[in-house]
């Protein structure tokens, strides 16, 4: 599988990572190499093989419906790069 520059740019946008134009070519090469490497999985017969969700052989535990967390706004906001009046702040979003 070979990825072209445009595809890499598209993925980078999907992942919200800015990639300088001049790095796209090199990155496309590296990613293609990795994809080529993983393509060997095609050799494995996986008919009727269930995809693994978790190696933990157990059931999903459920917790009680009790309020046990939250209520510490200062701690939640203390690492925020920009906050105001108890909110996180980002540039204006237009819907």
């Amino acid at each position, binding site marked *: 599988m070979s990825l072209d520059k445009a595809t890499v740019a598209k993925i980078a946008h999907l992942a919200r990572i800015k990639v300088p134009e001049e790095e796209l070519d090199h990155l496309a090469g*590296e990613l293609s190499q990795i994809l080529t*490497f993983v393509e060997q*999985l095609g050799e494995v017969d996986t008919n009727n*093989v269930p995809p693994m969700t978790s190696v933990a052989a157990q059931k999903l535990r459920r917790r009680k419906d009790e309020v046990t967390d939250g209520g510490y706004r200062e701690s939640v906001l203390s690492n925020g790069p920009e906050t105001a009046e108890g909110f996180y702040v980002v540039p204006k*979003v237009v819907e």
Partner: protein
Amino acid sequence: MGALTHLTMAEALDGLAKKEYTAVELTEAHVKAVETIRPLNAFITETPDKALEMAKASDARRAKGEVGPMEGLPIAVKDLFCTRGVLTTAASHILDGFKPEYESTVTTNLWRDGAVMLGKVNLDEFAMGSANITSYHGNVVSPWSPGEVGNWSRQLVPGGSSGGSAAAVAARAALGATGTDTGGSIRQPAAFTGIVGIKPTYGRCSRWGVVAFASSLDQAGPMTRTVEDAAIMLRSMCGFDPKDSTSVDMPVPDFRAALTGDIRGLKVGIPREYRVEGMPAEIAKIWDQGIEWLKAAGAEPVDISLPHTKYALATYYIVAPAEASSNLARYDGVRYGLRVEGGNLKDLYENTRGAGFGKEVRRRILIGTYVLSAGYYDAYYNKARQVRTRIKWDFDEAFKSCDVILTPTAPSTAFAIGEKMDDPIQMYLNDVFTVPASLAGLPGMSVPAGLGSDGLPLGLQLIGRPFDEETVLRVGHVIEKAADFTATPPFVA
């Protein structure tokens, strides 16, 4: 006081109990050692004040007769574990300045049992790497590097991702360190630096408060200088945590009690597929030596087959990046860490993540994003999950005829910084022996077994049945004794 840093945990516990020294004295020696090994760049954050404060508290507890299983032992914490009020970086620019207001479950358990924190150690960025060269805070140098300190003739890697942990423990700056292992990140650096590292069964250690790389694979574990120390520290780290849905509610055994030395009649599986083409002779030799040691101790080697071994790396390099691409989406410059402004929110995201992630992390996020994207999910991600099932089945089948599996830990000794750097696949091959057990969620341990022709440590890996760390530790203990690995790195504190 130099000798204090050369103690094992077991010895130190003994000395503390006999009041030969206090926790403060033990900690002071280590704080000094941490300073001494600065040229290795093993620590991202040193916390000497906190260490001494904790040591004082430990001595006070001891005076009252309250003695935890790790009472007064100074350790290093991989900077992937969130520690309250202490900078936690995951070795990434994107977590600049992040001081969590919470403490990971594993470190909470360690402090509960009396351990003392020396600081936060370096790692590959977000634990992605096998050489500790992807850290935003600079690479870690192995204390095994030859030549003059700081002016090494060959700068060797300590392995990764827990490279800072491995270097600190090998260089005698900490009695032990926490590591995390996603595809071999505890076992491979342990092998490279001549120490012991165990990744327990998936679900043994809580992942709560550990910065996530690949959720279905990540497991914490101890890195120590002896198997006995690993048993001591593992017991403190493990335990059921209701805050982690994948944590297993099972009693934690006294792992130290499992080190009986008696492995008579035990069946040790030797997987034929691990004898990969082009395996260096000295790796094959140390493996054969390991088999002989176990035979001599009364165990019975059995030939086993793990037919999908060769597909493990490819599986891993789909599953882990896919999960990582999603796990790392939260680093967006809004609530913590780095923010690089942009005119609008989209630019803020792209600038922050563009600047905040290093090249390896970026590469993996992009691969992960790609294999999950529309049209490719089935061909890549779902296929990899199916192969993962087959790899797990291989182990299930193998454990019908053996009790534990013996393999080399890594395909080579430590390499120098600058080698294998251009080719991601070459780098990924480091994990060829460790990844299968990770994919199957099995416990795996690396034990130092000898030195290669280059004078660098070689490790052997033991893989056990789910939740049978005891057998892994018992067999590892036997190898440790037989190997009588006493070599120390040229640079120690």
